[in-house]
């Protein structure tokens, strides 16, 4: 195997790196390119198409591109939200995979300065007659519950779906929603030569090394052997990190904040510098490590959880360290902003790597892949008249109610603390959840939806239907839909037929979101959800936020009184 293949790069990509650097990259640099140019970090297969989304609207304060999107809800407040996948880790270790998924999305919200007020999740498995699927479901629900419950953020809504196509590739999409005063929105833009870079939160270990590139490969027997790819979450640490960060967020000396997700220190430092058009210098010897003798490259790409990167004005480092100390968290000054546009990595005084920020962060070519209408679409047809007549309707009704996809999901959501912080007006079990916005008369209505079978049958219409279903759920609580976030779960994009469904789904979402005036403000793409046996249905999960001006008017789904009229509306 070639050097570049080991880190998941192609020959062509390697050539571009050598040209960009004017030399061969050393091992550290190559690893950084490997993780950042992976699909998971670079969105190289989706970026070009994501541009098609409808992202503008009078309420939009922050569209896609930041840690999370932000939308104006009046009263000087903004709602900040995003959805994210943690599919592959959850297939390997359902409990930790799902838990760290929740941890990651929460950090995306509070890096923007917002206090998370609610979590949602969309989870999909193979049918429950299989013991493994049952274990996956139990582990995932346990992981989502435990993490959210411990941090003290109510998990208020979601969806739980079963289909054979998810047997080898369960889907775990986690969404989080936060509130912030709109003038306090933080952005992750590194600025100001000489300003300090501070790493805070958990210690850095070898766990999760290679996680990002891992998330971009097909699930094969080999990945089962890539042991270190699983990370362990520590919700307790996250809770402390959340409180400490929010305590600092409105300080004027905090220039920028970014959480460490996929590709760890490499991606966070590079992205921040890229947005700020500056350079950044990191001294790995200053990083507080959990294990001895960690190599610079291990430190740079570790995916240890519950960590954040701060850029602060020179001279204010102590202020930051003091707050983190109070919360019993690590914090160390590990670098500074520099004026050349490089990411320079040192170990003490010795430079161990130096690459242009632009090449590393933006050099992975956005490819518009070729696509082809899948053959199966032409083969699908059903003659309704050929179906057998249902004789016993009672029996049929019971069968429908008993089926996994229709049956009550109380077993799931009862394991989530959906009431903590006493703002939950409409609880899970209805169409959408409603959560009060403290200090106002307003409430937010929240839901996630996708019928992936429809998307399989017609990716364009199916995606439109997902957006519309979400909007109906919101409307049914009395709220007005205002914006969406999306999680595009698909199979291998290098397959032209898969790429076709991906493209169609984006066009469908775009169309529906224009008509409903619910712009896309954030989202996530997860490819390679397939095994050598199965391929998931196209699954563009839609997370939607609605606004209710008067929280006392929230509607619930239950029939209220004997004698009330029941009216069916719509087409």
């Amino acid at each position: 195997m070639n050097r570049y293949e080991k880190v998941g790069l192609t020959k062509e990509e390697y050539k571009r790196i050598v040209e960009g650097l004017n030399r061969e990259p050393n091992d550290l640099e190559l690893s950084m390119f490997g993780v950042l140019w992976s699909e998971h970090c670079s969105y190289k297969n989706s970026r070009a198409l994501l541009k098609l989304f409808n992202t503008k609207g009078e309420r939009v304060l922050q569209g896609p591109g930041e840690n999370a999107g932000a939308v104006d809800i009046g009263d000087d407040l903004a709602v900040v939200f995003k959805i994210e996948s943690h599919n592959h880790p959850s297939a390997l270790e359902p409990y930790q995979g799902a838990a760290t998924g929740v941890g990651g999305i929460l950090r995306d919200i509070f890096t923007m300065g917002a206090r998370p007020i609610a979590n949602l999740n969309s989870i999909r498995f193979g049918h429950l007659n299989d013991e493994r699927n049952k274990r996956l479901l139990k582990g995932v629900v346990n992981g989502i519950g435990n993490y959210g419950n411990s941090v003290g953020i109510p998990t208020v809504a979601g969806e739980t779906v079963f289909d054979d196509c998810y047997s080898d590739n369960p889907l775990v999409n986690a969404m989080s929603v936060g509130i912030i005063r709109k003038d306090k929105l933080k952005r992750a833009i590194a600025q100001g030569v000489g300003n300090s870079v501070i790493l805070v939160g958990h210690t850095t270990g070898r766990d999760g090394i290679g996680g990002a590139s891992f998330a971009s490969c097909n699930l094969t027997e080999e990945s089962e052997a890539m042991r270190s790819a699983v990370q362990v979450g520590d919700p307790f640490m996250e809770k402390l990190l959340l409180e400490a960060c929010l305590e600092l967020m409105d300080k004027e000396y905090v220039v920028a904040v970014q959480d460490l997700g996929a590709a760890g220190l490499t991606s966070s430092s590079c992205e921040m510098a890229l947005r700020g058009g500056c350079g950044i210098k990191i001294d790995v010897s200053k990083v507080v490590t959990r294990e001895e003798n960690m190599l610079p490259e291990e430190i740079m790409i570790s995916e240890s959880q519950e960590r954040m990167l701060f850029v602060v004005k020179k001279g204010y480092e102590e202020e930051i360290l003091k707050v983190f100390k109070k919360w019993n968290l690590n914090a160390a000054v590990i670098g500074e902003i520099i004026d050349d546009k490089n990411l320079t990595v040192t170990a003490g005084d010795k430079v161990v790597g130096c690459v242009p920020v632009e090449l590393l962060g933006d050099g992975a070519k956005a490819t518009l892949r070729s696509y082809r209408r899948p053959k199966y679409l032409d083969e699908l047809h059903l003659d309704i008249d050929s179906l057998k007549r249902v004789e016993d309707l009672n029996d049929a009704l019971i069968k429908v109610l008993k089926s996994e996809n229709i049956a009550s999901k109380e077993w799931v959501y009862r394991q989530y603390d959906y009431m903590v912080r006493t703002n939950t007006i409409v609880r899970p079990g209805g169409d959408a959840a409603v959560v009060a916005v403290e200090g106002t008369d307003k409430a937010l209505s929240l839901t996630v939806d996708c019928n992936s079978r429809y998307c399989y049958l017609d990716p364009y219409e199916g995606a439109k239907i997902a957006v519309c279903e979400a909007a109906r759920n919101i409307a049914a609580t009395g709220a007005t839909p205002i914006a969406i976030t999306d999680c595009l779960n698909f199979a291998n994009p290098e397959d032209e037929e898969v790429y076709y469904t991906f493209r169609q789904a984006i066009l469908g979402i775009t169309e529906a979101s224009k008509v409903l005036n619910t712009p896309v403000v954030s989202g996530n793409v997860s490819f390679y959800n397939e095994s050598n046996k199965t391929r998931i249905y196209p699954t563009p999960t839609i997370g939607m936020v609605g606004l209710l001006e008067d929280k006392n008017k929230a509607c619930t789904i239950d029939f209220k009184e004997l004698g009330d009229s029941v009216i069916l509306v719509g087409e």
Partner: protein
Amino acid sequence: MKAGVIVFPGSNCDIDAYKVLEKLNVEVKYIWHDEKIDDEDLIVLPGGFSYGDYLRCGAIARFAKALENINEHIEKGKLVLGICNGFQILTELKALPGALLRNKNLNFICSDCNLIVENTDTPFTNLFKKGDIVNFPIAHGEGNYYIDDEGLGELIKNNQIVFRYQNNPNGSVADIAGIVNKRGNVLGMMPHPERAQDKLLGGEDGLVFFKSVIAYFKEV
């Protein structure tokens, strides 16, 4: 009357407890885990996952600085209320007998929950009538109250059982949801009265509970 809500790292119902007391015009403040408690009339140990609830729920919180003088506080006759994680901490402290084990079904349970008021002769329940049914939500993974037969006999003899579950959700011995110490000034309970503070959020039975405390201090 003055109240203090202790905030451990990992507490997450601290705000809810504070909110309900504030709503009832009680002078209330937060007490950070490594500050000392002062002369508060009511100390609330809130729900949550103190110190991550690692090892056993409440095991590490018991050693917090804020709890150093808790025994003297109790001896003085001041009130201590432990809700959920707070109840777990109080049993770890041995301020209340017994222990809380994992729910019998092994899962975390969040839901509404009907309780039967067994004892109205406490500072926390004096506005209820014996046999009242109240709805305080539950949200816990380890709320299965355990005590041996002898201990149970003591609880019954001394009328220390304050709330019982109408439909035992977690396997607790004798359907016990909340108990007081012998003197009656320390109450531990798994259900959350502070979550039942607003009709819009599903009920306000909890207000009666906290008003009882206020009424108690008006008397003395």
